[in-house]
C-alpha cells in the first residue's frame, strides 16, 4: 500500500502547488498503530502526513459540509463507499461540484482497528501494510501479522457493494473487483425471521445501552440539518432523558430520517461507543427499498432521486 | 432554611406584575413559606433559579433590594421557552424559586463613595437592586451621590419608568439621566446613545464607582469612555450572563476560564474581566 500512499501524496501535492485546491482532506497516521485520523493539509510540504492502508475507515466526505462556504476549493480522499456520500451531498445541493476535487482510491477493505490492536504488541510501530487479496499483512517493528479479511474486516466491508469510487476526478491505483465475504442482507433477514417478541427484546437490549452521544448522527454524511430535531428545545420532540423509550424514538427517527439518502457507508455502526448495530436499522430500510421500489443504494449514481422523493405510477402502495 | 444543594425550588406566589415594555415584565413574588424569606439573605446583585414546571429553570437576577421588604422582584424579558410561559402567568399563580446564588456587588467596599450607574435597555434589572439598596433609608448615609444614566432604544423600550421618573429623582442627592437612541415626538429628554451620553455627563472618577449593565455592544463602547474619563479598571463593575443549569458551580457550562459565572460571578470588576478569556 506504500505505492498508493505515494501516489496520493503526489496528487495532493500537485493540486496544492497548482493552487487547484486550498485544502486536502485525507488520512494520516493515527495515535494507535492500527488507526488513522483525518488530516487537513493546506501546503504542499504537508502532504507527507497523508497515508493509505487498511485502517482508513473514516468517511471524509462529511467534512465537505464544513467547508461548503469556505472561499477556496477542497480536495477529499474517498473510498468506494465514501464516494456515494459525495454524490449524495451534491444531489442534495449541500456542496457544489466546482468547489471540490475528489481523489478516489479503490479500497481493498478496512480492518476493525481494535480487533487488530488486540493481536499486536501495544508498543509496536507500523512499518507497512500489504494487501494480499484475501488478507492484509501488517508489518510492524515487532513482527509481521496476517489478518484474514473475512475475520478482521468491518462488517460493511464484508458486504461491500462497490470498492471503487463512483465519482472521482483522480483515481489512485487500479480498480478492484467486487468481492463479497458475506450476503449483504443476511443479518437483516436473520432478524426478520424472529418473532415479534424476540425482535422487540433484541432491540430493547441494544437501545437500552445507548448513551445518546449522537456520534452516529454527527458522523453521518447525509445528516446535514442545520438544527437537528434531537437538539431542538421547542418543541422538545425527544427528551435528553436517557431511557428505553426515548432511545428507541431516537434510533427509529434517526434511521428513518436518512431513509432513501443513507449511502450505507456504515460509519454510524463503526463509531458507536456502545456497539449498537445501528446500521442494521438502515440496512433494513435499504433492503425494503430494494424489494419495494427496486432502488439502488443512494449515491451510487449521480442524479438519482431519493426513493422517498420520487413517485412513479408503478410504485407499490398499501395506503389507498 | 433554604437548602440549595437539593436543586429543589420553593413555591412562590405572584403578587404583582408590572408590564415594563411589550416584552419585559416585572414579577413580584412571595414565598409560600414565609420562613424561607426570613432566611433568604439575598444581597444586591445575586440571582435566583426560577422554575416554571414543564419548562425547566432559568437564571434571573433579583431586581429588588432586600431593604424593600419581604418579597422578591424579577424582571424578565420574553426571549425563550421558559420566559414565554412565565409571561403568560397571572397574579396569584405559582412558580418555583431557589437561591440566592452568585456573588454580589461589593457594597461594603463601595461605602463612602459616589455611585454612578449605567444601564441600557432591559439590563437595568441586575443593578436596580443595588440602586435601591444604596438609596434605602437604612444605608443611604453610607454612600455619596447616586447617579443613574439609563438609555433605551425608544420610550416604549424604557423599563422601570416609575423609578426613573418618579421615585428616584425625588430622593436625596440623586441624579437621573435618561436617553433614547432616536428622537421621538413625545420625548422631551436627551436623545443619543449611552456611551456618548456618558461622555457628555462626564462623571468625575474621583471617589466614584461606575456600575455598568447593558447589552454587550453598549458595554463595549461605554468602557473606553470611562477609561477616558480617568476611571481605573477597579472602579468599573459589571455583571455577566451565561447559560446556567445548576447555579451551584457543578453543571459546567457557565465557565469563563476557570471561573464559574454562577458562583464566582455574575458581578465582576473590569480589572477581573481583563484577566479572563474573552469567551462570553
Amino acid at each position, binding site marked *: 500500500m506504500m505505492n498508493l500512499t505515494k501516489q496520493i501524496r503526489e496528487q495532493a501535492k500537485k493540486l496544492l502547488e497548482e493552487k487547484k485546491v486550498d485544502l486536502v482532506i485525507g488520512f494520516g497516521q493515527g495515535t494507535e498503530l492500527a488507526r488513522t485520523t483525518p488530516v487537513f493539509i493546506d501546503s504542499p510540504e504537508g502532504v507527507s502526513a497523508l497515508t493509505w492502508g487498511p485502517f482508513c475507515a473514516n468517511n471524509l466526505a462529511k467534512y465537505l459540509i464544513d467547508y461548503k462556504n469556505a472561499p477556496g476549493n477542497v480536495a477529499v480522499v474517498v473510498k468506494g463507499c465514501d464516494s456515494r456520500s459525495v454524490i449524495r451531498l451534491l444531489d442534495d445541493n449541500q456542496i457544489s461540484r466546482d468547489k471540490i476535487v475528489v481523489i478516489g482510491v479503490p479500497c481493498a477493505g478496512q480492518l476493525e482497528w481494535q480487533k487488530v490492536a488486540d493481536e499486536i504488541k501495544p508498543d509496536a510501530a507500523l512499518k507497512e501494510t500489504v494487501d494480499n487479496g484475501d488478507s492484509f499483512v501488517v508489518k510492524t517493528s515487532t513482527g509481521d501479522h496476517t489478518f484474514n479479511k473475512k475475520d478482521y474486516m468491518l462488517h460493511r466491508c464484508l458486504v461491500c457493494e462497490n470498492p471503487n469510487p463512483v465519482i472521482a476526478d483522480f483515481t489512485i491505483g487500479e480498480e478492484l473487483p467486487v468481492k463479497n465475504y458475506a450476503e449483504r442482507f443476511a443479518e437483516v433477514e436473520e432478524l426478520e425471521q424472529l418473532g415479534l417478541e424476540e425482535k422487540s427484546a433484541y432491540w430493547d437490549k441494544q437501545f437500552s445501552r445507548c448513551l445518546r452521544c449522537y456520534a452516529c448522527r454527527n458522523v453521518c454524511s447525509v445528516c446535514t440539518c442545520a438544527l437537528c430535531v434531537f437538539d431542538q428545545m421547542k418543541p422538545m420532540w425527544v*427528551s435528553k432523558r436517557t431511557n428505553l423509550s426515548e432511545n428507541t424514538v431516537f434510533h427509529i427517527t434517526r434511521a428513518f430520517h436518512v431513509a432513501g439518502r443513507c449511502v450505507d457507508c456504515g460509519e454510524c455502526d463503526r463509531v458507536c461507543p456502545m456497539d449498537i448495530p445501528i446500521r442494521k436499522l438502515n440496512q433494513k430500510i435499504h433492503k425494503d427499498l430494494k424489494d419495494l421500489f427496486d432502488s439502488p443504494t443512494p449515491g451510487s449514481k449521480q442524479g438519482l432521486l431519493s426513493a422517498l422523493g420520487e413517485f412513479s405510477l408503478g410504485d407499490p402502495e398499501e395506503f389507498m | 432554611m433554604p437548602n440549595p444543594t437539593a436543586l429543589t425550588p420553593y413555591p412562590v406566589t405572584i403578587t404583582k406584575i408590572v408590564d415594563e415594555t411589550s416584552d419585559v415584565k416585572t414579577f413580584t413574588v412571595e414565598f409560600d413559606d414565609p420562613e424561607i424569606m426570613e432566611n433568604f439573605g439575598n444581597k444586591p446583585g445575586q440571582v435566583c433559579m426560577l422554575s416554571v414546571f414543564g419548562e425547566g429553570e432559568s437564571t434571573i437576577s433579583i431586581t429588588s433590594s432586600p431593604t424593600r421588604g419581604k418579597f422578591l422582584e424579577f424582571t424578565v424579558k420574553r426571549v425563550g421557552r421558559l420566559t414565554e410561559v412565565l409571561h403568560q402567568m397571572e397574579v396569584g399563580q405559582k412558580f418555583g424559586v431557589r437561591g440566592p446564588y452568585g456573588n454580589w456587588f461589593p457594597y461594603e467596599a463601595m461605602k463612602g463613595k459616589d455611585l454612578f450607574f449605567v444601564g441600557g435597555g432591559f439590563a437595568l434589572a441586575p443593578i436596580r437592586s443595588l440602586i435601591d439598596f444604596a438609596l434605602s433609608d437604612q444605608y443611604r448615609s453610607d454612600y455619596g451621590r447616586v447617579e443613574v444614566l439609563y438609555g433605551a432604544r425608544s420610550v416604549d423600550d424604557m423599563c422601570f419608568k416609575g423609578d426613573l421618573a418618579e421615585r428616584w429623582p425625588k430622593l436625596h442627592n440623586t441624579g437621573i439621566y435618561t436617553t433614547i437612541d432616536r428622537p421621538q415626538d413625545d420625548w422631551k429628554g436627551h436623545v443619543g446613545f449611552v456611551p456618548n451620553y456618558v461622555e457628555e455627563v462626564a462623571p468625575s472618577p474621583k471617589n466614584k464607582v461606575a456600575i455598568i449593565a447593558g447589552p454587550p455592544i453598549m458595554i463595549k463602547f461605554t468602557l473606553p469612555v470611562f477609561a477616558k474619563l480617568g476611571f481605573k479598571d477597579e472602579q468599573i463593575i459589571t455583571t455577566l450572563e451565561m447559560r446556567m443549569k445548576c447555579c451551584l458551580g457543578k453543571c459546567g457550562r457557565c465557565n469563563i476560564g476557570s471561573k464559574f459565572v454562577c458562583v464566582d460571578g455574575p458581578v465582576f470588576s473590569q480589572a477581573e474581566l481583563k484577566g479572563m478569556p474573552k469567551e462570553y
Partner: protein
Amino acid sequence: MKAKIVNKGQLSGLLDKLAKDYDLVAPVKEETITLFKKISSAQDAFLDYTNSDVSPKGCFLPQSEKIFSYTYTGDSLEIVKPESAKKTVLFGARPCDIKAITTLDPVFEGEKFGDEFYSSKRENTVIIGLSCSKVLSTCFCYAFGGGPCDGTGSDLLFTEIGDKYYVEINTDKGQALVDANSQFFSSENTDQLAKDKEELAKKLAGEFVKKVDLTGVKELLDSDFELAYWDEDPYKKCIGCGTCTYVCPTCHCFDIFDFTTGDITGDRIRCWDSCMYPEYTLMAGGHNPRPTRKERIRNRFMHKLKYHLDRYNMVGCVGCGRCIRKCPVNIDITKIINDLKEVAQNA
C-alpha cells in the same frame, strides 16, 4: 496497612452475600460492551476486563436522574422528592475510575455548595477496587500519579494474584464490610502477597506505551488563551459528538430539565450533558459564547488540563484512555498534551 486474603473460590460467595445485603454494582458484559450495572448474583459479574466501555461514574452521577416529581396546575404546586440513596457496593472498579471519583468529589462536595444527590450516594456506597492485570495501549494513568494497582479513593482494593485476591483495607468503611463478612476473608500469608502485589505494580508500570509529559503545559495554558494551536488539527476533525464526554470518568457536566409525564405532572431530570454540543452554552436570546467546535474543543481540553487544576488542584483527567479509544476521529488527549508541551518549549 491492613490486608486480607480472599480465595478465588470464595469470591462468588462473597458477591452473592453482598448482592443480598446491598445494591451490588459490578462490571457486566453485554455482547461486546463492558459496563457497570446492578447485579443480583455473582455469576452476572464480568471481571475479566481491562477497562470498561463506560466508567462507573454513573453510580454517583447517573446518566439520567430524577430530582423530584411535581404536580403543577398554575395555582397549586406539589413537589415529591425521590427516595434517598440505597446502601450500595461498587465492586470491581479499576483504579483509574476510582481516582476519577475522587476528582469528582470536590466538584460535588466542595466549595460553596454541596450536592445532595451525589453526596448521599457517595456516603452510602462502599467502593471495592480491582487492580489491573494488563495495560492497554491507550492507558496513561501513571501520568497523573495513578497506577494499575493504586488504591487511591477505594475502600477496599482487590488485587488478583494467582488463585487469590490480595485485599487492602483502605478505610473504615472497607473495614466494616470486611468485619461483616469475615467468613470470606482470611489473614494467612498476607506479607508474601503484599510483596507479590508490589512486583505486579512494578511490572505493569513498565508496560505503558503512551508517553505523556505535562511539563510546561499548564503554564502555557495559563499564559495564553488564544493559542494558535487551537486553530489547528483537533477542532477541524472533531465531529462534535459527545462520545468523549460521556465515556469520560471525570466529566461531570449535566443538564436539568422537565420531563412532562401528564397534563399537570412531570419530573425534573438531571442528565449528562456534553460541552461538545452547540446548545450547551446557547442562551435563550440566541447568543452563544462558544459558537464553533474550536471554542468547544478548547474548552474541553482547557477544562481537563487547566480549569479543573485551578479550581480543585487536580488534573481533570485520570488517564483511562477511553476518549482515545472511542473517539470516531482519533482525537487523542495525550497527543494534545504532547503537542502543547512542544508549543511551550518552542515559545
